[in-house]
């Protein structure tokens, strides 16, 4: 396994009486897909939000690329190279596909405060965004407004935006949710290809996909990670079967 890119050390988050995350430790290494699974309400999304910077942890540390990033806000973490997609698609709906990705390229370049040159005729933005769009097979839809895209296409576009940031790590919150079997297969192939470029922390409910994709799987139940291991180890883990897989099989 490659070097550690993202490392969570004993992260905790409490909402009133509810302990959403308790002492969660987890790491993500170069070249791997690390899947986080667990029943609904286990605290997976809370964990993602803490890593992305949307909510502040009550305790513990987040180390990204060798640096403690607890104090950085969401935008600064994105600039540091933490790309993400959302559980519910989050795009600029009045913009076209190309414009969405161009904005992501602009975010990556960090030169938003230019007031005079036209965005739409910016050759540099257009070229880089075009490349990313082609990588994700969206080139035929480049000028279509987001509001007219299918759900699966939105998922692809979110991925394009995340990739345009040239991230050092990707946080994907249920990228396969609701895109149908064909879309799901397409996305699975894409993720397989992607992990060579950038390590992925994957939250996903589709077990078949998780077992196919993940190099390592962590299982979260009631805010705690009960075990981490390879697909084979997790499948044969008694505790996991009881807590999660067993329920699904029955």
């Amino acid at each position, binding site marked *: 396994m490659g070097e550690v890119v993202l490392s969570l050390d004993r992260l905790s988050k409490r909402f009133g009486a509810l302990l959403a995350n308790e002492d969660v430790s987890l790491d993500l290494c170069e070249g791997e897909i690390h899947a986080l699974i667990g029943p609904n309400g286990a605290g997976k999304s809370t964990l993602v939000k803490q890593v*992305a910077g949307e909510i502040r942890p009550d305790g513990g540390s987040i180390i990204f690329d060798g640096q403690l990033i607890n104090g950085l*806000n*969401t*935008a*600064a973490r*994105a*600039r540091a190279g933490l790309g*993400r997609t*959302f559980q519910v698609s*989050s*795009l*600029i*709906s*009045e*913009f076209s596909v190309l*414009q969405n990705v*161009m*904005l*992501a390229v*602009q*975010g*990556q370049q*960090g*030169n*938003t*405060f*230019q*007031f*005079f*040159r*036209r*965005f*739409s005729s*910016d050759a540099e*933005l257009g070229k880089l965004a075009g490349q990313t769009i082609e990588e994700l097979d969206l080139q035929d839809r480049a000028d279509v407004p987001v509001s007219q895209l299918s759900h699966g296409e939105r998922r692809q576009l979110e991925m394009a*935006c995340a990739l345009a*940031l040239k991230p050092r790590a990707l946080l994907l919150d249920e990228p396969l949710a609701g895109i149908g079997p064909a879309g799901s297969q397409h996305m699975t192939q894409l993720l397989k290809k992607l992990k060579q470029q950038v390590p992925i922390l994957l939250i996903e409910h589709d077990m078949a996909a998780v077992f196919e994709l993940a190099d390592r799987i962590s299982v979260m139940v009631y805010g705690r990670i009960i075990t981490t291991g390879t697909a084979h180890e997790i499948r044969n883990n008694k505790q996991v079967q009881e807590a999660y897989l067993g329920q699904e099989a029955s």
Partner: protein
Amino acid sequence: MRRETWISFGFMAAGLFLVVAAWFGDEPFTITLATKVVILSLAGVGLNLALGHGGLVSLGHAAFFGLGGYAMGILASHAQSFEPLMIGAWALEGTKSMPLIWLVAMLVAALFALPIGVLSLRTSGVYFIMITLAFAQMIYYFAISWPAYGGEDGMSIYVRNSFPGLNTLDPIQFFILCALILAICLVLVDRLVKSRFGMALEAARQNPQRVTSLGIDTFKLQLTAFVISAAITGLAGALYADLNRFVSPSMLSWQVSGEIMIFVILGGVARFAGPLAGATVFIALEHFLGGLTEFWQIWLGLLLLVVILFARGGIIGVLAGERRHG
């Protein structure tokens, strides 16, 4: 060219034609009325940047309009009385030079907008509307209770300020000056809105979460837009005070904030010529209907209601027939 562009330019050409006709017909009053429309449009252009493109519904832009007006009033009154303006130990000469006054008006409006924006942008929605209103009211009451510059009565500037090479007291010359400033601001704002900054601002209005996840700070974007917006409205305030040769706290009142907002909404939110169309219709109603009945604002209210219910794109939106802004 897009239909909206044709309509915008057609609209401006029609306005200019009317002014030229009034000039040949020797009707200075009409020219002055047109100048008022141009200046109020400029205030609307400022607000349109924050409200239309930035989604920042400010009900406090009268503060910047009035501050621009007072910047002119204070500088000109010191020039009038030959007493230097004391800021601490500094003695500043007053001035009657328009370019200098404009610069100061924009700077003052921007300097006030910065802290107001920093505090107001912590909120959004109704709270943003209320907090911007509250700041404007604070400045309004301050102006009323500050006797040095006229207090509640305001102050008169006897001679219009000067611009090199022009006789600004000639209505047509002052009109041309104001119209040129409006044109320059329209072009600059249009470029700004279509630049990297403008697109990010537009995106932040639609989906701040997305913009943040791209590593762009929405707070910085919106604060910058708010400050620029205030500076433009401040410039309009200085021109308005010069038009009337009078400045008073009424320029700072919340009714003025409301009126500037009406220009933008009536004309078309985030439309290039929206504030122009809005201000034109507003002043036309005030002038013609106001001549017939004291209660002309009932009709304005009805018109506004129709626009909001049936034509979200405002006057320009209806004419251009394209939907933008859901």
